[in-house]
């Protein structure tokens, strides 16, 4: 395995509020990292800094060994064109799908390939169909998003990101807006991706997914990584009281075994 993503001393403040207080993380190619934490812990912000949906206040991000941005007098500066290229190399899936409503499913998956990567129409079309096949929605190619269920929309959003041949995929609470019944189909798709060797960073509340699919679990608290480790140990025997509280909160109303 080789390093694909490195985050060094990542800080992010919104006005006076410091959300991230120094995150260091190295992700290996093919790894699935699940990020846990209560709301306000900074987990979504961290994910959004990786592809510069938010620009970091401080810190460095390397993708495949390349430092993003240019360092000048100890401060990082970024060119918009460089960030657009970076974003095209990193896939992102959102909580609320954000499919383009005026385009068919197929057009949604074509858009980035044609407009951003400049792929030829035929090649992009083959690619799009292959990705829709992969998430099990090839037969919906000519439907509009409004005709799909939440779970289907989210799988289209995954296909849209995959069609760009991303080096890393970011999942930002992608099952939080779904009916409980539909969560499974999305998690199954994600698991399949993980098994195929995709590098994934997932912010989620699905502890079961973390337990069965993740290679590593991070627990964020107040802007720092409080704990990390293999899911089987960290989810069963956390070191800190804070994480134990967090996990207890999740299993408060668990069905008896």
């Amino acid at each position, binding site marked *: 395995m080789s390093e694909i993503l490195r985050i060094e001393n990542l800080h992010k403040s919104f006005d006076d509020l410091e959300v991230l207080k120094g995150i260091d993380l190295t992700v290996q190619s093919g790894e699935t990292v699940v990020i846990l934490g209560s709301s306000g812990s900074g987990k979504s912000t961290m994910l959004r800094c990786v*592809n510069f949906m938010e620009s970091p206040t401080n810190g460095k991000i390397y993708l495949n060994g390349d430092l993003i941005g240019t360092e000048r007098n100890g401060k990082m500066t970024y060119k918009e064109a460089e960030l657009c290229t970076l974003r095209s190399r990193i896939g992102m899936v959102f909580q609320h799908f954000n499919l383009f409503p005026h385009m068919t499913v197929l057009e949604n998956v074509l858009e980035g390939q044609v407009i951003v990567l400049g792929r030829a129409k035929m090649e992009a079309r083959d690619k799009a169909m292959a990705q829709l096949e992969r998430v099990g929605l090839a037969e919906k190619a000519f439907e509009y998003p409004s005709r799909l269920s939440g779970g289907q929309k989210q799988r289209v959003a995954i296909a849209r990101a995959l069609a760009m041949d991303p080096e890393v995929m970011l999942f930002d609470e992608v099952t939080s807006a779904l009916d409980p019944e539909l969560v499974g189909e999305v998690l199954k798709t994600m698991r399949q991706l993980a098994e195929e060797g995709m590098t994934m960073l997932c912010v989620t509340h699905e502890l079961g997914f973390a337990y069965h699919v993740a290679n590593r679990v991070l627990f964020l608290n107040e802007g720092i990584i409080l704990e990390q480790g293999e899911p089987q140990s960290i989810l069963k025997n956390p070191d800190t009281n804070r994480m134990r509280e967090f996990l207890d909160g999740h299993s408060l109303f668990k069905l008896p075994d």
Partner: protein
Amino acid sequence: MGHTWDFATILQNWPVLWVGIKGTVFIFVITVVLGLGGGLVVGVARYAKSPFLSWPARAFVEVFRNTPVLVQIIWFFYAFPILTGIETDPFLAAVLGISLNTMAFSAEIYRAGIQSIDRGQWEAGKAIGMTYNQTLRRIILPVAVKRVLPALTNRGIEVFKMSTLASVVGYVETLNQAKLIADLNYNPIESYTAVALIFFVVLFPVVQGTYVLERMLRKGD
């Protein structure tokens, strides 16, 4: 009281009126295209993050939205040539007044449309590597414009009626020609009634069409 209607003189002068109708349609097409097209540019600038774009756009909108079109047309005809040395004629003065005013109003419509689009759409475009302009053009505007289409067609109907204001500086359009007929035949009641009828006959079906359009758009959502 007790007016005896006599439209015979109007029909006899139909060629005169017809010249006016063609003038109305001509200035309408020019001003509606300039006004709604230019409004899109101003509306996008008004929404822009850069103050170098948004402030001039805002100033433009406020100036032309808060002054009467009639005054603008008169101003472009009498004051503008003296202040700038650029010659205007009735047509140009009327086109400037009506289209700039329409640009200001429609700019606000477009801006409202852009603002009504969910932030997630901007994020989705950005996340696949699109630039601001690509996202605006391909993702935001198609949906925003569709959403404000009823408001824009309303604006278009206003523009059609506003064209009569061009008569004040002597541009040859329907009202101007009706005045001519009235002066020559002493039949102002029939002449101006004819103008109102002509506008009604043109606009009524158009307005019915916009209702159908609105219903179709709602179904598409």
